[in-house]
Protein backbone atom coordinates (compact mmCIF):
# COMPACT_ATOMS: atom_id res chain seq x y z
CA UNK A 1 0.00 0.00 0.00
CA UNK A 2 1.26 3.46 -0.83
CA UNK A 3 1.96 5.53 2.26
CA UNK A 4 0.88 9.15 1.93
CA UNK A 5 1.58 11.98 4.28
CA UNK A 6 -1.28 12.95 6.59
CA UNK A 7 -1.99 16.41 5.04
CA UNK A 8 -2.03 14.92 1.55
CA UNK A 9 -4.40 12.19 2.63
CA UNK A 10 -6.67 14.75 4.27
CA UNK A 11 -6.66 16.88 1.14
CA UNK A 12 -7.50 13.83 -0.99
CA UNK A 13 -10.37 12.79 1.27
CA UNK A 14 -11.71 16.34 1.17
CA UNK A 15 -11.51 16.30 -2.61
CA UNK A 16 -13.45 13.06 -3.21
CA UNK A 17 -16.88 14.57 -2.62
CA UNK A 18 -16.48 17.51 -5.06
CA UNK A 19 -14.83 15.23 -7.61
CA UNK A 20 -17.68 12.71 -7.39
CA UNK A 21 -20.16 15.57 -7.62
CA UNK A 22 -18.54 16.76 -10.85
CA UNK A 23 -18.53 13.15 -12.05
CA UNK A 24 -22.27 12.71 -11.46
CA UNK A 25 -23.09 16.04 -13.08
CA UNK A 26 -20.99 14.80 -16.01
CA UNK A 27 -23.17 11.67 -16.02
CA UNK A 28 -26.26 13.88 -16.30
CA UNK A 29 -24.67 15.63 -19.28
CA UNK A 30 -23.71 12.35 -20.95
CA UNK A 31 -27.22 11.00 -20.34
CA UNK A 32 -28.67 14.11 -21.98
CA UNK A 33 -26.28 14.08 -24.91
CA UNK A 34 -26.65 10.39 -25.70
CA UNK A 35 -30.03 8.93 -24.75
CA UNK A 36 -28.93 5.49 -25.87
CA UNK A 37 -26.10 5.39 -23.35
CA UNK A 38 -28.30 5.20 -20.26
CA UNK A 39 -30.86 2.95 -21.94
CA UNK A 40 -28.07 0.52 -22.91
CA UNK A 41 -26.80 0.59 -19.34
CA UNK A 42 -30.23 0.00 -17.86
CA UNK A 43 -30.93 -2.82 -20.34
CA UNK A 44 -27.65 -4.48 -19.28
CA UNK A 45 -28.54 -4.05 -15.61
CA UNK A 46 -32.04 -5.44 -16.22
CA UNK A 47 -30.48 -8.46 -17.94
CA UNK A 48 -28.36 -9.15 -14.88
CA UNK A 49 -31.20 -8.57 -12.44
CA UNK A 50 -34.03 -10.39 -14.22
CA UNK A 51 -32.90 -13.96 -13.32
CA UNK A 52 -32.29 -12.90 -9.71
CA UNK A 53 -35.75 -11.38 -9.48
CA UNK A 54 -37.15 -14.51 -11.11
CA UNK A 55 -35.69 -16.65 -8.30
CA UNK A 56 -37.35 -14.55 -5.62
CA UNK A 57 -40.67 -13.73 -7.23
CA UNK A 58 -41.59 -17.44 -7.52
CA UNK A 59 -41.89 -18.02 -3.76
CA UNK A 60 -43.67 -14.67 -3.31
CA UNK A 61 -46.26 -15.71 -5.84
CA UNK A 62 -46.62 -19.12 -4.22
CA UNK A 63 -47.19 -17.50 -0.84
CA UNK A 64 -49.77 -15.13 -2.33
CA UNK A 65 -51.50 -18.06 -3.95
CA UNK A 66 -51.42 -19.94 -0.65
CA UNK A 67 -53.06 -17.18 1.35
CA UNK A 68 -55.65 -16.77 -1.36
CA UNK A 69 -56.54 -20.45 -1.20
CA UNK A 70 -56.88 -20.43 2.59
CA UNK A 71 -58.99 -17.30 2.45
CA UNK A 72 -61.26 -18.90 -0.13
CA UNK A 73 -61.95 -21.97 2.02
CA UNK A 74 -64.25 -19.95 4.25
CA UNK A 75 -66.54 -18.80 1.47
CA UNK A 76 -66.59 -22.00 -0.54
CA UNK A 77 -70.33 -22.68 -0.67
CA UNK A 78 -71.29 -19.09 -1.50
CA UNK A 79 -68.67 -19.02 -4.21
CA UNK A 80 -69.97 -22.29 -5.61
CA UNK A 81 -73.52 -20.97 -5.88
CA UNK A 82 -72.24 -17.77 -7.48
CA UNK A 83 -70.16 -19.73 -9.98
CA UNK A 84 -73.08 -21.97 -10.90
CA UNK A 85 -75.28 -18.96 -11.64
CA UNK A 86 -72.47 -17.37 -13.63
CA UNK A 87 -71.89 -20.61 -15.52
CA UNK A 88 -75.54 -20.84 -16.57
CA UNK A 89 -75.45 -17.26 -17.81
CA UNK A 90 -72.18 -17.83 -19.68
CA UNK A 91 -73.59 -20.92 -21.40
CA UNK A 92 -76.39 -18.79 -22.81
CA UNK A 93 -73.84 -16.24 -23.97
CA UNK A 94 -71.78 -18.98 -25.59
CA UNK A 95 -74.66 -19.92 -27.84
CA UNK A 96 -75.11 -16.27 -28.77
CA UNK A 97 -71.40 -15.97 -29.48
CA UNK A 98 -71.38 -19.11 -31.64
CA UNK A 99 -74.34 -17.86 -33.66
CA UNK A 100 -72.63 -14.50 -34.10
CA UNK A 101 -69.37 -16.15 -35.12
CA UNK A 102 -71.14 -18.19 -37.78
CA UNK A 103 -72.89 -15.07 -39.05
CA UNK A 104 -69.60 -13.15 -38.99
CA UNK A 105 -67.82 -15.85 -40.98
CA UNK A 106 -70.63 -15.89 -43.53
CA UNK A 107 -70.49 -12.12 -43.95
CA UNK A 108 -66.72 -12.16 -44.23
CA UNK A 109 -66.88 -14.87 -46.85
CA UNK A 110 -69.34 -12.85 -48.93
CA UNK A 111 -67.16 -9.74 -48.59
CA UNK A 112 -63.96 -11.57 -49.62
CA UNK A 113 -62.41 -10.39 -46.35
CA UNK A 114 -58.63 -10.84 -46.11
CA UNK A 115 -57.63 -11.53 -42.50
CA UNK A 116 -54.55 -9.57 -41.40
CA UNK A 117 -51.53 -11.81 -40.76
CA UNK A 118 -51.22 -12.99 -37.16
CA UNK A 119 -48.39 -11.21 -35.37
CA UNK A 120 -45.55 -13.08 -33.72
CA UNK A 121 -45.62 -12.99 -29.96
CA UNK A 122 -43.59 -14.14 -27.03
CA UNK A 123 -44.90 -14.56 -23.52
CA UNK A 124 -42.89 -13.30 -20.60
CA UNK A 125 -43.27 -13.29 -16.85
CA UNK A 126 -43.28 -9.95 -15.06
CA UNK A 127 -40.43 -10.28 -12.58
CA UNK A 128 -40.05 -6.80 -11.16
CA UNK A 129 -41.99 -3.61 -10.76
CA UNK A 130 -39.25 -1.13 -11.57
CA UNK A 131 -41.16 2.09 -11.88
CA UNK A 132 -39.71 5.26 -10.47
CA UNK A 133 -41.59 8.00 -8.68
CA UNK A 134 -42.51 9.56 -12.01
CA UNK A 135 -42.36 6.49 -14.26
CA UNK A 136 -44.50 3.39 -14.54
CA UNK A 137 -42.72 0.38 -16.00
CA UNK A 138 -42.32 -3.33 -15.37
CA UNK A 139 -39.48 -5.71 -16.12
CA UNK A 140 -40.41 -8.77 -18.19
CA UNK A 141 -38.29 -11.87 -18.50
CA UNK A 142 -38.30 -12.86 -22.19
CA UNK A 143 -37.42 -16.34 -23.40
CA UNK A 144 -34.21 -16.21 -25.46
CA UNK A 145 -35.22 -15.66 -29.08
CA UNK A 146 -33.48 -17.16 -32.07
CA UNK A 147 -33.66 -13.88 -33.92
CA UNK A 148 -32.46 -10.42 -33.08
CA UNK A 149 -33.70 -9.40 -29.62
CA UNK A 150 -33.98 -5.82 -30.88
CA UNK A 151 -37.01 -6.99 -32.91
CA UNK A 152 -38.94 -6.77 -29.66
CA UNK A 153 -38.30 -3.02 -29.42
CA UNK A 154 -41.64 -1.26 -29.60
CA UNK A 155 -43.60 -4.50 -29.24
CA UNK A 156 -47.12 -4.13 -27.88
CA UNK A 157 -47.64 -5.72 -24.46
CA UNK A 158 -51.03 -7.22 -23.57
CA UNK A 159 -52.11 -9.09 -20.49
CA UNK A 160 -55.08 -11.48 -20.56
CA UNK A 161 -57.62 -8.68 -20.75
CA UNK A 162 -56.20 -5.70 -22.58
CA UNK A 163 -53.39 -3.39 -23.56
CA UNK A 164 -50.74 -2.93 -20.88
CA UNK A 165 -47.99 -0.96 -22.61
CA UNK A 166 -45.09 -0.98 -25.03
CA UNK A 167 -41.53 -2.28 -24.87
CA UNK A 168 -39.03 0.57 -24.50
CA UNK A 169 -35.79 -1.25 -23.57
CA UNK A 170 -34.64 -4.68 -24.69
CA UNK A 171 -31.78 -6.75 -23.36
CA UNK A 172 -30.85 -10.28 -24.34
CA UNK A 173 -33.22 -11.89 -21.80
CA UNK A 174 -35.30 -9.06 -20.41
CA UNK A 175 -37.49 -6.27 -21.70
CA UNK A 176 -38.80 -3.18 -20.00
CA UNK A 177 -42.44 -2.33 -20.68
CA UNK A 178 -43.59 1.26 -20.29
CA UNK A 179 -47.15 1.03 -18.99
CA UNK A 180 -50.04 3.01 -20.46
CA UNK A 181 -50.35 4.86 -17.13
CA UNK A 182 -46.86 6.40 -17.48
CA UNK A 183 -46.78 10.14 -18.04
CA UNK A 184 -44.89 9.66 -21.31
CA UNK A 185 -47.39 7.20 -22.77
CA UNK A 186 -49.62 8.38 -25.61
CA UNK A 187 -51.92 5.90 -27.34
CA UNK A 188 -54.18 6.83 -30.27
CA UNK A 189 -57.56 5.25 -29.55
CA UNK A 190 -60.95 4.78 -31.14
CA UNK A 191 -63.98 5.14 -28.88
CA UNK A 192 -67.24 3.26 -29.06
CA UNK A 193 -68.92 1.56 -31.97
CA UNK A 194 -68.35 4.57 -34.24
CA UNK A 195 -64.64 4.54 -33.52
CA UNK A 196 -64.41 8.28 -32.91
CA UNK A 197 -60.74 9.19 -32.56
CA UNK A 198 -59.04 10.45 -29.40
CA UNK A 199 -55.68 10.26 -27.67
CA UNK A 200 -55.18 8.41 -24.41
CA UNK A 201 -52.49 10.08 -22.32
CA UNK A 202 -50.98 8.56 -19.19
CA UNK A 203 -50.74 10.79 -16.14
CA UNK A 204 -49.08 8.48 -13.55
CA UNK A 205 -52.46 7.86 -11.93
CA UNK A 206 -54.20 4.48 -12.34
CA UNK A 207 -56.61 5.89 -14.95
CA UNK A 208 -55.15 7.56 -18.07
CA UNK A 209 -57.05 10.56 -19.41
CA UNK A 210 -58.64 11.07 -22.83
CA UNK A 211 -57.56 14.06 -24.91
CA UNK A 212 -58.47 15.58 -28.29
CA UNK A 213 -61.91 13.97 -28.64
CA UNK A 214 -64.38 15.69 -30.87
CA UNK A 215 -66.46 18.20 -28.83
CA UNK A 216 -69.54 17.43 -30.91
CA UNK A 217 -69.31 13.74 -30.00
CA UNK A 218 -68.05 13.49 -26.42
CA UNK A 219 -67.13 9.94 -25.39
CA UNK A 220 -70.05 8.24 -23.70
CA UNK A 221 -69.75 6.82 -20.21
CA UNK A 222 -69.03 3.10 -20.41
CA UNK A 223 -68.06 3.14 -24.11
CA UNK A 224 -65.34 0.66 -25.08
CA UNK A 225 -61.92 2.10 -25.97
CA UNK A 226 -59.87 0.29 -28.62
CA UNK A 227 -56.47 1.15 -30.09
CA UNK A 228 -56.46 2.91 -33.41
CA UNK A 229 -53.94 2.64 -36.23
CA UNK A 230 -53.71 6.43 -36.44
CA UNK A 231 -50.04 7.36 -36.70
CA UNK A 232 -49.00 3.77 -37.24
CA UNK A 233 -47.79 3.15 -33.70
CA UNK A 234 -50.39 0.54 -32.74
CA UNK A 235 -52.40 -2.07 -34.62
CA UNK A 236 -56.11 -1.23 -34.64
CA UNK A 237 -58.72 -2.90 -32.50
CA UNK A 238 -56.83 -3.98 -29.39
CA UNK A 239 -58.99 -3.62 -26.25
CA UNK A 240 -57.76 -0.86 -23.93
CA UNK A 241 -60.51 0.00 -21.46
CA UNK A 242 -63.82 1.73 -20.91
CA UNK A 243 -64.66 5.42 -20.67
CA UNK A 244 -65.48 6.82 -17.26
CA UNK A 245 -66.16 10.38 -16.09
CA UNK A 246 -64.54 11.34 -12.80
CA UNK A 247 -65.38 14.99 -13.34
CA UNK A 248 -67.49 16.84 -15.85
CA UNK A 249 -65.83 17.04 -19.26
CA UNK A 250 -62.76 15.12 -18.14
CA UNK A 251 -63.16 11.55 -19.37
CA UNK A 252 -60.66 8.95 -18.23
CA UNK A 253 -60.10 5.37 -19.36
CA UNK A 254 -60.45 2.55 -16.86
CA UNK A 255 -57.88 0.07 -18.24
CA UNK A 256 -59.03 -3.49 -18.76
CA UNK A 257 -55.55 -4.81 -17.96
CA UNK A 258 -54.83 -5.39 -14.28
CA UNK A 259 -51.88 -2.98 -14.22
CA UNK A 260 -51.25 -3.20 -10.48
CA UNK A 261 -50.92 -6.94 -10.49
CA UNK A 262 -49.32 -7.86 -13.81
CA UNK A 263 -48.07 -11.44 -13.84
CA UNK A 264 -47.75 -12.51 -17.47
CA UNK A 265 -47.47 -10.31 -20.51
CA UNK A 266 -47.64 -11.23 -24.17
CA UNK A 267 -45.37 -9.10 -26.34
CA UNK A 268 -46.66 -8.82 -29.90
CA UNK A 269 -44.29 -7.56 -32.57
CA UNK A 270 -46.03 -6.12 -35.60
CA UNK A 271 -43.17 -5.52 -37.99
CA UNK A 272 -44.82 -6.03 -41.38
CA UNK A 273 -48.46 -5.18 -41.15
CA UNK A 274 -48.04 -1.72 -39.65
CA UNK A 275 -49.60 0.94 -41.82
CA UNK A 276 -47.25 3.49 -43.32
CA UNK A 277 -47.12 7.02 -42.03
CA UNK A 278 -47.65 8.43 -45.50
CA UNK A 279 -51.09 9.94 -46.19
CA UNK A 280 -53.44 7.57 -47.95
CA UNK A 281 -54.08 8.80 -51.52
CA UNK A 282 -57.78 9.19 -52.27
CA UNK A 283 -57.37 8.15 -55.90
CA UNK A 284 -55.20 5.54 -57.54
CA UNK A 285 -51.49 6.09 -56.97
CA UNK A 286 -50.86 6.58 -60.71
CA UNK A 287 -53.04 9.68 -60.70
CA UNK A 288 -51.10 12.95 -60.76
CA UNK A 289 -52.68 14.78 -57.78
CA UNK A 290 -52.12 11.84 -55.45
CA UNK A 291 -48.48 11.66 -56.50
CA UNK A 292 -48.00 15.30 -55.72
CA UNK A 293 -49.29 14.77 -52.17
CA UNK A 294 -47.54 11.53 -51.32
CA UNK A 295 -44.36 11.84 -49.31
CA UNK A 296 -41.23 10.31 -50.76
CA UNK A 297 -39.45 7.97 -48.35
Amino acid at each position, binding site marked *: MIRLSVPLRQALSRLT*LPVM*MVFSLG*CVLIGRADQNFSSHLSAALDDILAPAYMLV*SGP*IRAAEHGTGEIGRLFSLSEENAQLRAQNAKLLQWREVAMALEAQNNELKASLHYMPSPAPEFSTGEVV*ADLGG*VYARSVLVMVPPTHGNPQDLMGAVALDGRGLAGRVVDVGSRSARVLLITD*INSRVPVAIGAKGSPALMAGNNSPDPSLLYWSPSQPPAEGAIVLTSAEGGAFPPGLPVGVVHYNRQNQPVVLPLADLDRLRLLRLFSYPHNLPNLTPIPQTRPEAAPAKAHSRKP
Partner: protein
Amino acid sequence: MALGSPLRHPTHLLHQIDAASRWIFPCATLIFGLFVLGMPFGIPGQAALRPVYAMGCVYFWSLYRPASLPAPLAALCGLLLDLLGLSPFGVWAALLLLLQWATLLLRRKLAPARFLLVWAAFTVMAVVISSLAWAADCALTLTWLPTSPLMFEWLLSAGLYPTLTALLIRAHRAPAAVELA
Protein backbone atom coordinates in the same frame (compact mmCIF):
# COMPACT_ATOMS: atom_id res chain seq x y z
CA MET B 1 -4.60 3.57 20.99
CA ALA B 2 -4.60 0.11 22.49
CA LEU B 3 -7.79 -0.62 20.62
CA GLY B 4 -6.60 1.07 17.48
CA SER B 5 -3.42 -0.88 16.87
CA PRO B 6 -4.94 -4.28 16.01
CA LEU B 7 -7.41 -2.46 13.80
CA ARG B 8 -4.76 -0.83 11.71
CA HIS B 9 -2.52 -3.85 11.36
CA PRO B 10 -4.75 -6.88 11.37
CA THR B 11 -2.49 -9.81 11.97
CA HIS B 12 -4.93 -12.52 11.13
CA LEU B 13 -6.57 -13.10 7.77
CA LEU B 14 -9.90 -13.78 9.45
CA HIS B 15 -9.63 -10.47 11.23
CA GLN B 16 -9.04 -8.76 7.94
CA ILE B 17 -12.06 -10.43 6.36
CA ASP B 18 -14.16 -9.59 9.41
CA ALA B 19 -13.13 -5.93 9.32
CA ALA B 20 -13.70 -5.67 5.58
CA SER B 21 -17.15 -7.24 5.76
CA ARG B 22 -18.13 -4.88 8.57
CA TRP B 23 -16.82 -1.94 6.56
CA ILE B 24 -18.74 -2.96 3.46
CA PHE B 25 -21.97 -3.71 5.36
CA PRO B 26 -23.73 -0.30 5.05
CA CYS B 27 -23.14 0.00 1.32
CA ALA B 28 -24.02 -3.64 0.65
CA THR B 29 -27.32 -3.41 2.55
CA LEU B 30 -28.14 -0.14 0.80
CA ILE B 31 -27.66 -1.67 -2.66
CA PHE B 32 -29.40 -4.92 -1.68
CA GLY B 33 -32.35 -2.95 -0.32
CA LEU B 34 -32.68 -1.06 -3.61
CA PHE B 35 -33.02 -4.38 -5.43
CA VAL B 36 -35.42 -5.86 -2.89
CA LEU B 37 -37.71 -2.83 -3.21
CA GLY B 38 -38.07 -3.62 -6.93
CA MET B 39 -39.80 -6.94 -6.30
CA PRO B 40 -43.47 -7.10 -7.20
CA PHE B 41 -44.89 -7.08 -3.67
CA GLY B 42 -47.85 -5.02 -4.82
CA ILE B 43 -47.36 -2.41 -2.08
CA PRO B 44 -48.98 0.87 -3.16
CA GLY B 45 -46.35 3.56 -3.67
CA GLN B 46 -43.55 1.04 -3.76
CA ALA B 47 -41.69 3.11 -6.36
CA ALA B 48 -41.53 6.11 -4.04
CA LEU B 49 -40.10 3.91 -1.31
CA ARG B 50 -36.78 3.38 -3.11
CA PRO B 51 -35.47 6.98 -3.11
CA VAL B 52 -36.73 7.46 0.45
CA TYR B 53 -34.85 4.36 1.57
CA ALA B 54 -31.68 5.52 -0.21
CA MET B 55 -31.90 8.98 1.33
CA GLY B 56 -32.46 7.54 4.81
CA CYS B 57 -29.48 5.20 4.53
CA VAL B 58 -27.13 7.85 3.13
CA TYR B 59 -28.18 10.29 5.84
CA PHE B 60 -27.81 7.77 8.67
CA TRP B 61 -24.46 6.36 7.62
CA SER B 62 -23.00 9.78 6.77
CA LEU B 63 -24.04 10.93 10.20
CA TYR B 64 -22.86 8.03 12.34
CA ARG B 65 -20.32 6.12 10.25
CA PRO B 66 -19.11 8.30 7.35
CA ALA B 67 -16.04 6.14 6.71
CA SER B 68 -18.30 3.23 5.70
CA LEU B 69 -20.11 5.18 2.98
CA PRO B 70 -17.49 7.17 1.02
CA ALA B 71 -18.62 9.52 -1.71
CA PRO B 72 -17.87 7.18 -4.66
CA LEU B 73 -20.12 4.47 -3.16
CA ALA B 74 -22.89 6.99 -2.52
CA ALA B 75 -22.61 8.12 -6.15
CA LEU B 76 -22.75 4.48 -7.29
CA CYS B 77 -25.96 3.94 -5.31
CA GLY B 78 -27.40 7.08 -6.90
CA LEU B 79 -26.58 5.82 -10.39
CA LEU B 80 -28.24 2.48 -9.58
CA LEU B 81 -31.30 4.34 -8.36
CA ASP B 82 -31.43 6.25 -11.65
CA LEU B 83 -31.08 3.14 -13.78
CA LEU B 84 -33.69 1.20 -11.80
CA GLY B 85 -36.23 4.01 -11.56
CA LEU B 86 -35.98 5.41 -15.11
CA SER B 87 -35.10 8.91 -13.87
CA PRO B 88 -32.59 10.94 -15.91
CA PHE B 89 -29.17 9.32 -15.61
CA GLY B 90 -26.95 10.84 -12.90
CA VAL B 91 -29.56 13.00 -11.18
CA TRP B 92 -29.91 10.89 -8.06
CA ALA B 93 -26.13 10.42 -7.87
CA ALA B 94 -25.67 14.19 -7.65
CA LEU B 95 -28.55 14.52 -5.19
CA LEU B 96 -27.34 11.77 -2.86
CA LEU B 97 -23.89 13.40 -2.84
CA LEU B 98 -25.54 16.72 -2.03
CA LEU B 99 -27.39 15.07 0.85
CA GLN B 100 -24.14 13.50 2.06
CA TRP B 101 -22.32 16.81 1.87
CA ALA B 102 -25.06 18.62 3.82
CA THR B 103 -25.08 15.86 6.44
CA LEU B 104 -21.30 15.95 6.83
CA LEU B 105 -21.44 19.75 7.27
CA LEU B 106 -24.02 19.43 10.07
CA ARG B 107 -22.47 16.33 11.58
CA ARG B 108 -20.85 18.01 14.60
CA LYS B 109 -24.22 19.42 15.66
CA LEU B 110 -26.50 16.54 14.66
CA ALA B 111 -24.57 13.52 15.92
CA PRO B 112 -24.88 14.32 19.64
CA ALA B 113 -28.37 15.85 19.24
CA ARG B 114 -31.64 14.31 20.38
CA PHE B 115 -33.49 11.97 18.05
CA LEU B 116 -36.32 14.42 17.37
CA LEU B 117 -33.88 16.98 16.04
CA VAL B 118 -32.11 14.38 13.87
CA TRP B 119 -35.50 13.27 12.53
CA ALA B 120 -36.58 16.84 11.79
CA ALA B 121 -33.28 17.57 10.04
CA PHE B 122 -33.72 14.46 7.88
CA THR B 123 -37.27 15.42 6.98
CA VAL B 124 -36.18 18.90 5.91
CA MET B 125 -33.29 17.51 3.85
CA ALA B 126 -35.49 14.81 2.25
CA VAL B 127 -38.11 17.39 1.31
CA VAL B 128 -35.46 19.60 -0.30
CA ILE B 129 -33.72 16.71 -2.09
CA SER B 130 -36.92 15.12 -3.42
CA SER B 131 -38.17 18.51 -4.60
CA LEU B 132 -34.86 19.02 -6.40
CA ALA B 133 -35.27 15.57 -7.98
CA TRP B 134 -38.74 16.56 -9.13
CA ALA B 135 -37.44 19.86 -10.56
CA ALA B 136 -34.53 18.13 -12.31
CA ASP B 137 -36.88 15.52 -13.80
CA CYS B 138 -39.21 18.27 -15.01
CA ALA B 139 -36.38 20.29 -16.52
CA LEU B 140 -34.61 17.36 -18.17
CA THR B 141 -37.73 15.78 -19.66
CA LEU B 142 -39.35 19.17 -20.45
CA THR B 143 -42.69 18.13 -18.95
CA TRP B 144 -44.69 19.39 -15.98
CA LEU B 145 -44.74 16.34 -13.72
CA PRO B 146 -47.56 15.85 -11.22
CA THR B 147 -46.75 17.00 -7.68
CA SER B 148 -48.85 14.45 -5.79
CA PRO B 149 -46.16 11.69 -5.86
CA LEU B 150 -43.70 14.29 -4.59
CA MET B 151 -45.87 15.10 -1.57
CA PHE B 152 -46.37 11.39 -0.98
CA GLU B 153 -42.58 11.05 -0.96
CA TRP B 154 -42.30 13.82 1.66
CA LEU B 155 -44.81 12.06 3.90
CA LEU B 156 -43.09 8.72 3.39
CA SER B 157 -39.68 10.09 4.29
CA ALA B 158 -41.00 11.79 7.41
CA GLY B 159 -42.95 8.71 8.46
CA LEU B 160 -40.48 5.97 7.70
CA TYR B 161 -37.30 7.44 9.19
CA PRO B 162 -37.90 6.21 12.79
CA THR B 163 -38.48 2.63 11.60
CA LEU B 164 -35.47 2.78 9.32
CA THR B 165 -33.32 4.18 12.13
CA ALA B 166 -34.42 1.42 14.50
CA LEU B 167 -33.11 -1.13 12.00
CA LEU B 168 -29.96 0.80 11.10
CA ILE B 169 -28.98 1.42 14.75
CA ARG B 170 -28.93 -2.33 15.31
CA ALA B 171 -26.70 -2.71 12.27
CA HIS B 172 -24.54 0.18 13.48
CA ARG B 173 -23.93 -1.53 16.82
CA ALA B 174 -23.26 -5.07 15.62
CA PRO B 175 -22.65 -6.12 11.98
CA ALA B 176 -21.38 -2.75 10.78
CA ALA B 177 -19.16 -2.00 13.79
CA VAL B 178 -15.65 -2.06 12.34
CA GLU B 179 -14.13 -1.40 15.78
CA LEU B 180 -15.48 -4.73 17.07
CA ALA B 181 -13.62 -6.77 14.45
